[in-house]
């Protein structure tokens, strides 16, 4: 059964998938830092291009990660809104000029500087988001764990994250089944009900879902322990793959992007200012 998934591993045959987990993690970190340190529009646009190309290369479709996208967009809108509410003149403070486009009320003007600043923030989101989604959706959970392990994080932590990611589809399926059984005994969860009642009824699914999930955790942790998980401070990985040319290239690209972003920031400052 194809349960709709929030965020999980989507196996494909693509360049991105064939990179090792370690490469992807390192690239993800380089890329994220590169986009975090700068507000320079030119750099951001460059990074955005790279980010979109990566996404394209992965053969992952937009609708498969729709939930995450929508979630992030809501976050983005809230972020921009609150920046404007609390400091409507942040743009002026940064860029030093004040070009009023129109007046709203009280101290709120729409200025070109503020709009430009908002644009940069939005760009940052769009730069970081596809790569972050890719890191999770295009990395086999076991490799995900081994990549975290390879940068010094305990494999226990890495493995618990991987197992959690793996169980998301199962738990979603449980949720679906429990919800259908509840509806079959007269509990309304469909669209015909008021939002508040629907929320209240959704709670009736939660208790059985939690119990079932706890049971799952119990079984899997017993199974893991019985096969020696956690015995040694280290472990080896069946899925470990050696680095290949593509991995070195990806790493080089990540480091270069980071270096460019850092250089531009050090030489020209964090902001690109078109107003002076």
């Amino acid at each position, binding site marked *: 059964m194809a349960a709709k998934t929030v965020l999980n591993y989507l196996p494909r045959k693509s360049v991105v998938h064939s990179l090792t987990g370690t490469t992807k993690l390192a690239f993800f970190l380089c890329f994220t830092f590169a986009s975090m340190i700068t507000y320079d529009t030119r750099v951001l646009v460059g990074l955005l291009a790279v980010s979109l190309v990566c996404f394209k290369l992965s053969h992952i479709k937009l609708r498969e990660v729709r939930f995450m996208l929508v979630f992030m967009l809501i976050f983005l809108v809230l972020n921009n809104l609150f920046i404007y509410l609390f400091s409507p003149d942040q743009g002026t403070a940064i860029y030093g000029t004040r070009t009023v486009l129109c007046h709203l009320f009280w101290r709120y003007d729409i200025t070109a500087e503020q709009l430009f600043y908002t644009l940069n923030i939005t760009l940052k989101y769009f730069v970081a988001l596809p790569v972050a989604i890719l890191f999770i959706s295009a990395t086999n959970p076991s490799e995900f764990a081994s990549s975290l392990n390879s940068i010094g994080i305990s494999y226990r932590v890495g493995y618990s994250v991987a197992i959690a990611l793996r169980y998301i589809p199962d738990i979603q399926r449980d949720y679906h089944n429990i919800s259908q059984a509840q*509806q079959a*005994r007269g509990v309304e969860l469909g669209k015909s009900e008021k939002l508040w009642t629907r929320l209240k009824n959704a709670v009736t699914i939660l208790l059985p879902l939690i119990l079932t999930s706890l049971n799952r955790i119990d079984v899997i942790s017993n199974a893991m*322990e*019985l096969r*020696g998980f956690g015995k040694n401070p280290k*472990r080896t990985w069946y899925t470990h793959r050696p680095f290949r040319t593509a991995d070195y290239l990806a790493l080089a690209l990540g480091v270069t992007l980071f270096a460019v972003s850092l250089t531009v920031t050090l030489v020209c400052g964090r902001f690109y200012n078109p107003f002076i």
Partner: protein
Amino acid sequence: MADPIISFKNFSFQYRAQKQPTLHDINLDIYPGERVLIAGPSGSGKSTLASCINGLIPFSYPGQCTGTLTVDGVDAPHSSIFQLSQHVGTVLQDPDGQFIGLTVGEDIAFSLENDCVAQPEMKDTVKKVAGLVGVDGLLDLAPHELSGGQKQRVGLAGVMVDRVQILLFDEPLANLDPATGKSTMELIDEIQEKTQTTVVIIEHRLEDVLWRHVDRIILVNEGRILADTTPDQLLSGSLLRDNGIREPLYLTALKYAGVEITPEKHPDHLDRLVLDEGDIRKVQDWFTAVGQPPEKPERPVLLEGKHLNFGYTPDRQILHDVNFVIHEGEMVSIVGHNGTGKSTLAKLICGFETPDSGQLLLEGKDITQDSIRSRAAQIGYVMQNPNQMISKTMIFEEVALGLSRSGLSQEEIRTRVEETLKICGLYPFRNWPISALSFGQKKRVTIASVLVMGPKLILLDEPTAGQDYRHYTEIMEFLRQLNRRGVTVVMITHDMHLMLEYTPRALAFSGGRLIADTTAAQVLCDPELTRRAALKETSLFGLAQKCGIDRPLEFVDRFIGYEESQREVKE
């Protein structure tokens, strides 16, 4: 004789959270290369016994151990779960839950990874062990691409990579259909012969385990060992029956016929069973004396499916042109191997999914487009696991939940819930928290919460899966009572006893098609049908042939009729 590989001496164990010990004064020796079955009803302590051997007790489930337990030379209660895992390989009950890796290869390698084995060696070992259990062609597959039996094989391979001396199987048959259960027992047999390991099996499905030879049966109940002897000895007495373990059906039939069972007759397997002429005559006489049960009158049609087709995705069709009829007041079982569309059909009936084409008629009215909730008043659905259905903490509230939006007054709701609780035998517990109930009672609560809606038909998914004989009988007798009150009962099941004893009619599925709609006895006596529906021929059929009865199907029918009349006498 060699020294025992597992040795319990005056061993007792008490869980930290419990007031009483779960195991009392256990003295048990198991020798290298033996095959031992530990049998007992639910809550008898048999699983606790197994957990002591593999170290889950006391390392994951803490408690107080007294006495000694030595496992392959290791002082078990004072070692560690890791040290024991080098000696004991445990295959757990749930083949899905214990699948850790993302692919077959990775899962088999899990234990090697934890031992820091280098990758090339790891790949070699995995390949070798996979070959041993017959999954070498499947190394790159994900768990959801495997059948239940294949998963079981992977689970076994995953513990064999450690070259363990002891293989421990915790209810290996619980989640499998009869045909897969049979091949699992064959696999265990084969592996034991090849590797000469010691095999310990925890099960209560005796007849299925005895499909292949076991050396000894240890019968456990209430935390004590009641018997430690050969299958032949144990099957000749009444200890099994007295302790809630179901004996093989052919033995029940022999006892009905008045044949005395002795160890010399080798009752542990139908093929080895020795019957003298006197015994055979007794069986034949009984067959003649019992006579054919009366035909049941034809009843009006309640639910009808016409040309149902369905697939979750357009390119993979699950159900192909399914036509069926359920009559009022019937008890019907739906059988077939996993993934063949039984549950999908249930979903169509309840309205969880809409068929791609075809029609569903309830009392002649087309309900194909009706919503889940509008069907809920007439069709009740009970999930396999009661914990997935229960969402309130108190019994009364749980049963009343479905009525909260029915427009009835508080008073009317109270009356209806109380009435239902009385029918279900739960009235004395109405103000109890659900957490205080046993599994069987919880199952009753879920049935009550569906029944309160007043459905004409209830549909149950695996109502007795994983239950011991006592709980099984409790649940099924309850369903039979409901059925007598006029509720039509449809069950999805793997349990052949359930089919035979409780459902006169069976719908058998294979590959998404309905391949048989006939009596349960007929399905279980037809080698071709049993094979296609992943069932196992009933041993009654074999017994009839062995006794020279030329109408084995009638023998099975009469046996069922006789059992039913016996039960009615008791009531």
